[in-house]
């Protein structure tokens, strides 16, 4: 099953099982079903619980937070993650803060879904991976869709936490299949919010990457193994922040070299935060500083031949690990 379909089915199941769940976003209603068709069939089935909204990214996140505060659960789709910038205030200064700034715990079960990333030729304002800008907001979790993780479980986990979350969904990932088991070369194991992809146990190279990079990370792993004879384990967390590495402590304990890849641009990256955690944890055991693989410090151009240069490719990952 493709990731898009899996997401769609997860939303169907979520709304079916929990009548307090409401979903809103631009053009999410049928027959359109959202710009990426993730919400297909929902409005036909759940009627007014699914609302196509005006173009008001800040406003609809506020409405979602209001529903969540009042006792509902809300999912807001922002058509392109790039426009989450317009909802930054509602997320940072209202939804996230409300969980603690009133001196007691207040639940805000709100998920803001953010179709994200380049490689589709949409140009500089429709291709960004802005995850890093949402890292480290007290009271806000950052998730990223992966082909290994059951989206429905993640949505359930977020709602149960009462902490609002941004949920990044790579737009190219939508078109890829969900993954489980293995690919012949690597086994895919899912444990406590992480996927562990490896050809052998206890590799000296370990790569951490969010779900949107899976296609390219696995391609790089393959080439590394087959061409360069380097076995590298890939770790894919569903929740990017706060990051809990205890479930993969064994994998990290064996590492001599750790690499972090992400689609965001260089500078102030998620990887820097991962490295902060891991340099401390693995101090004295690594033979080199943690490697950072990201898009260059650049806008993402529209033309395919230029865009390829400014987005992370399998070869970039392979080269960094091979160094």
């Amino acid at each position, binding site marked *: 099953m493709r990731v898009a379909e899996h997401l769609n089915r997860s939303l169907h199941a979520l709304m079916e099982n929990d009548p307090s769940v409401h979903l809103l976003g631009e053009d999410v209603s049928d027959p359109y079903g959202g710009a990426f068709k993730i919400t297909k069939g929902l409005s036909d089935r759940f009627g007014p619980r699914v609302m196509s909204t005006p173009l008001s990214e*800040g406003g609809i996140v506020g409405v979602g937070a209001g529903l969540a*505060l*009042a006792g509902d659960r809300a999912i807001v789709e922002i058509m392109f993650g790039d426009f989450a910038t317009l909802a930054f205030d509602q997320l940072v200064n*209202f939804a996230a803060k*409300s969980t603690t700034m*009133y001196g*007691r715990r207040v639940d805000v079960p709100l998920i803001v879904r953010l179709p994200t990333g380049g490689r589709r030729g949409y140009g500089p304002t429709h291709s960004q991976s802005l995850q890093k800008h949402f890292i480290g907001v007290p009271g806000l979790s950052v998730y990223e869709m992966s082909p290994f993780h059951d989206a429905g479980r993640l949505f359930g986990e977020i709602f149960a936490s009462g902490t609002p979350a941004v949920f990044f969904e790579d737009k190219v990932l939508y078109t890829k299949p969900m993954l489980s088991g293995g690919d012949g070369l690597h086994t895919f194991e899912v444990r406590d919010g992480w996927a562990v992809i490896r050809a052998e146990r206890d590799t000296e190279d370990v790569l951490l990457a969010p779900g949107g990079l899976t296609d390219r990370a696995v391609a790089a792993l393959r080439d590394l193994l087959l061409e360069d004879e380097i076995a590298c384990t890939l770790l894919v967390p569903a929740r990017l922040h706060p990051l809990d590495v205890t479930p993969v402590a064994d994998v990290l304990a064996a590492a001599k070299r750790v690499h972090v890849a992400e689609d965001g641009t260089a500078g102030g990256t998620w990887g820097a935060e991962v490295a902060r955690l891991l340099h401390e944890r693995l101090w004295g055991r690594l033979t080199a500083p943690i490697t950072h693989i990201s898009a260059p410090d650049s806008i993402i151009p529209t033309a395919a031949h230029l865009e390829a240069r400014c987005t992370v490719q399998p070869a970039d990952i392979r080269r960094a690990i091979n160094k």
Partner: protein
Amino acid sequence: MIGAVRERTLTPVSEADLSRMLRIRHFEKALLRLFEQGRLNGTTHTCLGQEHVPVAVSALLRPEDHVFSNHRGHGHFLARYDEPHALLAEITGREGALCNGVGGSQHIYHERFLSTGVQGESLPVAVGVALRHKRTGDGIACAYVGDGTWGEGSVYEALNMAQLWGAPLLVVVEHNRIAQSTPTGAQLAGSIAGRCAGFGVRHERVESPDVNVVRGALAPLVDYVRREKRPAVFEASVHRAGPHSKGDDTRTAAELAEAAAGDWYAHYTRDFPAQVAALEEIERAFIDAAVENVLARPLSEWS
């Protein structure tokens, strides 16, 4: 306009309303005094001159309604919940505080009252809350904002959604002719009435220091919001009789005199001097005692 001999212009006021207006006033005056004495930390925005608006509003609200308040929210709170000790404890970070001293003056969440300090941010949130009320009963969301807050885009995103979706949202605008230091004419083009009309949202404006007149003008609007499940905007023309926060008033003497003359307090002391004097004595003493009581408490705890 105001001659030496003057007819009474206000309608008779209930003791409950006048007491509450005076209680809020003395609460605010106590805060400014504490600041002057260096006994208060941070900042505060008092509602001097505007106390009658939340007193008028609150009587029309039901317990299940949600109120969204802003930076100038003490009156909004005290008019709804007669808990000055808890509010003062919040502002001073003492035991018994509404939010353990974490939120302070501008960030309060108590029962169905929520305030925050980012102007305009709460309107879309209130739309969401109102939509839940629409589904589950007869509750409404009531959000207070100032005139200056109409500069924020979020206000229009909220009005549009509220009207499109029939959200039972009452927006109460305390139009005090100024935003911090900027007169309304320098920050608001057109009019609030016109803006509401542009979104198809019903709007009423009242220009009176009389709590009964304000309430009377608002009552049918609250009814409309509650029954028809539609948004409405209620604009109360008021005067900010104090500084924006503490001592930052750069208005001219003439402007200050105008504000003082428009203050409901000036009108009520003129029309009902004995009633005001009697109740004021009680409220001043009550607030003074509350201040002593709260400031003697240990610091609030938060974990």
